[in-house]
């Protein structure tokens, strides 16, 4: 079972996100995504402005990074875990044009992309066509369209995940529709590719990972599925996001500076070659000496944890 994760900590201006993060860490979450929710990516020029004048582009906030001191991540350190903080962008999909806007760099800079379709056609498009990781719903009020099994099974095969936001279940008004929609999602996906996350508006809205897993049981997920909903499925979702950034899910290219310290050993072999190649005319001994140091490095790297990245 992968690390507990909550992929939807809502970033709001007035409420301090750091407080929510601290609560999440206290409760035992190790992977957290801070969610920037932008209602509308394209500005609706309803006044019918002339086409020439460029429509005002909605300013997309940069991905939020909360600075946490060592002390904050204290109780995670006790368990030998470390906090992994991701940024996430969510928008309401009300017309197909928005997807083109979402492909621009300022939105692609986010780690996770989530979309909330409003009509049947857009739901079908979100499931089958566009490159996103999470499909969310306005789970507080009645769903405006039916969840057809065909696009849903296509989305499951593509690795797109469906999100159930449980903080909607707290307000008495929206609780009944929250449970109804959650049941409906569960019926159509049979519990596969479901993530349950908080969408917390306040620090008190976050619940512990085991409580959330139990919520999964309430809406009918099987025992292992509801545990996965907060751990393995989220990890698969994050990996799906990495796949999006890679070239055709086959190769991913980063500059050497980005490489973390403990991953240096993966490119040492090439670096040794490069240095050797540049110092070609150097005498044979240099190569010998390079060999010995390389051997010394390799056994140590052999103990490298299997999951290097």
């Amino acid at each position, binding site marked *: 079972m992968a690390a507990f994760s909550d992929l939807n900590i809502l970033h709001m201006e007035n409420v301090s996100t750091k407080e929510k993060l601290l609560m999440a860490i206290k409760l035992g979450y190790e992977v957290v995504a801070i969610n920037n929710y932008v209602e509308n990516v394209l500005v609706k020029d309803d006044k019918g402005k002339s086409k020439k004048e460029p429509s005002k582009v909605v300013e997309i906030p940069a991905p939020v990074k909360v600075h946490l001191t060592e002390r904050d991540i204290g109780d995670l350190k006790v368990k030998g875990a470390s906090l992994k903080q991701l940024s996430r962008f969510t928008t309401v999909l009300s017309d197909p044009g928005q997807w083109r806007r979402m492909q621009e760099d300022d939105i692609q800079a986010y780690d996770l992309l989530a979309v909330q379709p409003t009509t049947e056609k857009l739901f079908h498009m979100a499931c089958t066509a566009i490159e996103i990781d999470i499909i969310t719903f306005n789970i507080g009020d009645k769903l405006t369209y039916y969840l057809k099994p065909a696009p849903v099974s296509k989305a499951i*095969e*593509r*690795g797109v995940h469906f999100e159930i936001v449980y903080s909607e279940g707290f307000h008495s008004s929206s609780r009944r529709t929250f449970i109804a929609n959650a049941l409906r999602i569960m019926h159509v996906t049979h519990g596969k590719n479901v993530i349950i996350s908080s969408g917390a508006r306040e620090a008190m809205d976050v619940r512990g990972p085991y409580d959330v897993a139990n919520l999964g049981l309430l809406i009918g997920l099987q025992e292992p599925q509801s545990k996965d909903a907060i751990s393995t499925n989220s990890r*698969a979702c994050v*990996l*799906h996001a*990495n*796949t*999006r950034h*890679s*070239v*055709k*899910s*086959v*190769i*991913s*290219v*980063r*500059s*050497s*500076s*980005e*490489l973390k310290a403990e*991953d240096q*050993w*993966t*490119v*040492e*072999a*090439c*670096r040794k*070659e*490069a240095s*050797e*190649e540049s110092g*070609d005319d150097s005498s044979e001994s240099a*190569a010998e000496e390079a*060999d010995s140091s*390389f*051997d010394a490095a*390799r056994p140590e*790297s*052999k103990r*490298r944890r*299997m*999951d*290097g*990245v």
Partner: protein
Amino acid sequence: MSTPTQDSAVYSELPAGVKRQATQLKLADDVRDGSAYLSSFLRRHVAPRNLATAAAANDAHQVVLLDTVVPKKRPSSLQKKGRRQLNARERRGVDCFAASTARQTYRTHVPLHTLWRGYMRSLLQLEPSRALAADAQHRLLKADYHGCVLTVARSRCPSLVGVAGIVLQETRCTWRLVTREDRLVTVPKATCVFTFELEGHVVTLYGKHFVHRPADRCSKKFKSKATIDL
């Protein structure tokens, strides 16, 4: 045709009309004797240059092909049914695997690596400062990796992690690397993630989606898969 006197029991006289025609064509006396007819026939149908051979062959009762026939060429081993690749038996004959199982030393392949570096530099128009262009990344998919120094960064089989070496051969499911200790290692692609470095760019190669023959990789259209998990 044999002469009528000996076995008139077998052959009957030519009908009267044919005989009368024979006299008109002044063939009356030749008709009974076949050889004259045959030589006149040969003279009319066979080209003058091989008239002699035809006559000789006739005496030795051999078959003579009259029209010119191109002899059917026996297909050589490579052109059978227009196949481009060798089949397994021929490949064993060519023994292309033998080269890699022989004693390989790392040193002999360093020039191959430098060659590969030059090839890559030209292929991707590499500048350490500038990030790799998008289309350059796509060319990486179709590039040739013989000679590249590959390192196994992550793998399902822990003992493979840390193996690094120059790629000697790429088959559909494996890479054959020669490591610094001159050891030939066959690393399966499907369960590993490989990394190599090129002028300041670290390239991570997810083996799971790389399981194609090098020849197919150039023509294959890559579809992005669901996840890059091991």
